[in-house]
């Protein structure tokens, strides 16, 4: 009976502009009751923007939304919810200091005749809802005492406490274990039986076949195709999802690797274990895998920012005991964090002061700053990295994303580092600047630097790396050389 049903939701010609970018360009989406519709695409493909328009967070610039056969034009979340459209965000929106019942009914608490909140009824109804989904949770428990997975379940129940027809789930499984994921899928089956249409966003290719009915693929804010989840070919889907011309973006001159720079030994830390990797002079080594696979945690542990629980590592053959950022920098390591603005830069300080931030001790050994030296260093790296600014006295916050990233790179080049860890080096940077960064990375390894890169963008990993370690759930699954790099190959180990 699946093909016969009428669609509950039809979005067509949806366009959304943000200042300077076209986030969505004529996108369409059709959902059926009792079906799971998977949205597939890379970071920045426009999936989140699309569902935010659907749930009333953003308003569209163009296009139509037809709900149960009628045109609808809501402008905020509350109105969308009135139609029965609910969203569970990637970040959970629960109040940790309140009970499950209070969270489920937040904003629409049942009232008694006196107009006061009827907590008894709230608990009773919550219990019924929880039981309905086969969840063994006590409505009187506090959210803060629940696991992430349990909180996710509460989010689902919270969505269900409204009369609900369309449920949007934005990467619900990114922080769940396999067992918890199985539980979530069970619940989704329940919802399908209740004729709820589900829009499901995930990066995990293996989940698509397990839960999906239809798949819509998006890329760079554009609609690419809608496929049947059960019959589609995964490789085709990935090609459609990534499919951009790679040749001119990534220019690499693969050199013969030199001496060993980094070697880890059974490293165990916050979200990773048994990590054995090496990096040599002249090579770009990537850690690939899904978000949450433990890659950033490895980088932060190596740099002494997060603790190492077991194992250790050698830098240029020297064992680094009790690493700290200070010690690691003095031994020649550098780290470009994933969150540039929060961890890499001082946005409200001048460019030149950012550039010398990590080399103060080295370049001003007698404790006293020298304005001239600072200016010279600033201008030297402005030239070297072609940082687009008229004056190195300007604040870093005024630069574009790509130029900000160049400032971070400059900061590290100003130290005497030889190993640079790039965590998501091109996140939030437009394509032109990306190519510049890649060219720069290539130039650096040609000069004998070693680079350890962490990236969630498959294209980048494939285009730039000499070698790739693929990670899944905190462990290295495979080591691939650049000749054997394909998306399918990486994904096979990553999921």
């Amino acid at each position, binding site marked *: 009976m699946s093909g016969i049903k009428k669609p509950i939701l039809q979005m067509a010609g949806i366009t959304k502009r943000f200042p300077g970018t076209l986030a969505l360009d004529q996108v369409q989406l059709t959902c059926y009751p009792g079906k799971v519709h998977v949205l597939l695409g890379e970071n920045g493909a426009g999936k989140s923007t699309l569902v935010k328009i659907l749930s009333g967070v953003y308003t569209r610039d163009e296009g139509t939304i037809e709900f149960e056969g009628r045109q609808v034009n809501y402008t905020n979340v509350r109105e969308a919810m009135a139609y029965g459209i609910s969203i569970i965000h990637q970040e959970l929106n629960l109040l940790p200091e309140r009970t499950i019942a209070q969270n489920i009914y937040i904003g629409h608490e049942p009232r008694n005749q006196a107009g006061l909140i009827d907590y008894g009824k709230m608990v009773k109804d919550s219990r019924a809802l929880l039981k309905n989904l086969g969840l063994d949770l006590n409505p009187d428990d506090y959210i803060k005492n629940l696991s992430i997975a349990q909180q996710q379940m509460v989010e689902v129940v919270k969505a269900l406490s409204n009369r609900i027809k369309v449920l949007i789930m934005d990467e619900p499984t990114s922080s769940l274990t396999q067992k918890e994921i199985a539980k979530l899928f069970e619940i989704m089956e329940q919802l399908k039986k209740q004729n709820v249409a589900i829009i499901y966003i995930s990066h995990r290719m293996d989940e698509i076949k397990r839960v999906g009915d239809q798949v819509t693929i998006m890329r760079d804010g554009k609609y690419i195709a809608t496929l049947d989840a059960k019959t589609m070919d995964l490789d085709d889907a990935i090609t459609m999802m990534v499919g951009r011309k790679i040749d001119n973006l990534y220019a690499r001159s693969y050199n013969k690797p030199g001496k060993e720079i980094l070697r880890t030994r059974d490293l165990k830390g916050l979200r990773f274990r048994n990590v054995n990797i090496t990096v040599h002079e002249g090579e770009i080594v990537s850690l690939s895998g899904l978000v949450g696979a433990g890659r950033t945690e490895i980088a932060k542990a190596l740099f002494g920012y997060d603790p190492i629980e077991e194992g250790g590592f050698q830098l240029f053959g020297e064992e680094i005991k009790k690493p700290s950022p*200070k010690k690691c920098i003095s031994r020649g390591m550098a780290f470009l964090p994933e969150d540039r603005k929060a961890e890499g830069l*001082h946005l409200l*300080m001048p460019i030149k*002061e950012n550039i010398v*931030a990590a080399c103060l001790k080295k370049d001003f050994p007698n404790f006293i700053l020298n304005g001239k030296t600072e200016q010279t260093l600033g201008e030297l790296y402005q030239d070297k990295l072609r940082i687009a600014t008229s004056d190195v006295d300007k604040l870093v916050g005024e630069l574009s994303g790509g130029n900000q990233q160049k400032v971070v790179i400059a900061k590290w080049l100003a130290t005497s580092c030889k190993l640079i860890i790039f965590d998501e080096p091109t996140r939030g940077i437009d394509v032109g600047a990306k190519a510049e960064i890649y060219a720069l990375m290539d130039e650096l390894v040609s000069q004998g630097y070693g680079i350890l890169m962490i990236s969630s963008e498959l294209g980048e990993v494939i285009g730039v790396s000499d070698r790739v370690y693929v990670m899944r759930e905190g462990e290295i699954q495979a080591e691939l050389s650049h000749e054997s790099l394909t998306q399918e190959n990486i994904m096979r180990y990553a999921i």
Partner: protein
Amino acid sequence: MIDYFKKNVDFLSRITILLIIVAGMSVINPPAFLNWNNLSTVMFQQAPFTILMSFGMTMAIITKGIDKSMASIVVLASMLSGSYFKNGNLAMGFLIALAVGAAAGLLNGTLITRVGVAPFIATYGTDFIALGLAYVVCAGRYIYDFPANFRVITNGCFIPSVPNIALVTMIIFILLWFLTRKTIFGRSMYLAGFNVDATILSGIDAKKVVTVVYTINGLLAALVGVLYMARLNAADPNISGNLCLDSIAASLIGGTSFGGGKGSVSNAVIGALIIVFIRNGMNIMNISTNWQQAVVGFVIIFSVFYEMAIGRLTKKRMG
């Protein structure tokens, strides 16, 4: 020249505010206000205490903290060292006062950086401890009537017609200006204030920097304690009165931002002068002391608005 104005719009505009206030007072009551005797009394005798205190407060606020305890450290340091000064043992007196200040500052710094207590709470706790100990020490008996060779520290004039207290304040200002603007330590302090994570990830020991800042504050407070004793001719546990609030107010009026990273010791001087001149002018005009609080509050709020206006202006210039 124009470049200089653009870069220092913040500092220069605050001097303008100060001049406007001074000009206003001069118009209202020129004979009493606008004469060298009054201006020098305010600048050289009364303001130094507020200025020295707001140096410390400004530095704490630059590191995204606050130092509630300074005024009480002033009291404790003076109560503990007072009897030595009274007996003419100046070296011992200074040693004890500075040791007390450094210890209290180190306690603040350690609580904040190693134990992880929020700066307001840590220094608030130290505030109570220091004041409580001071009361225990004084037990109701003030030390009064210090020898002349001690009082000279504040009242004497090493340079003719410039009291030593003003000289000391100038020296401290130059030292701190150099420390905060021209050394690695100062740069690290600003870096940590703007973004502590990025600072640590740049290999700077931000915790050490913050601890040193609070220790310097303790030392400043101890110095103020000694100087105040010499001015007031008494070790009085009630001198803390307006010192803490005035120094916070001076920092705010001087453009220091609780968001961290923004502010400077030269701006603190201007902020402190603004406050002291307001108090002086209102006394001279014989306006009730109670109004001074209200007016200082008004100036703080005005300076916040002013800050936002400057921010917009600067942004426009950059864009």
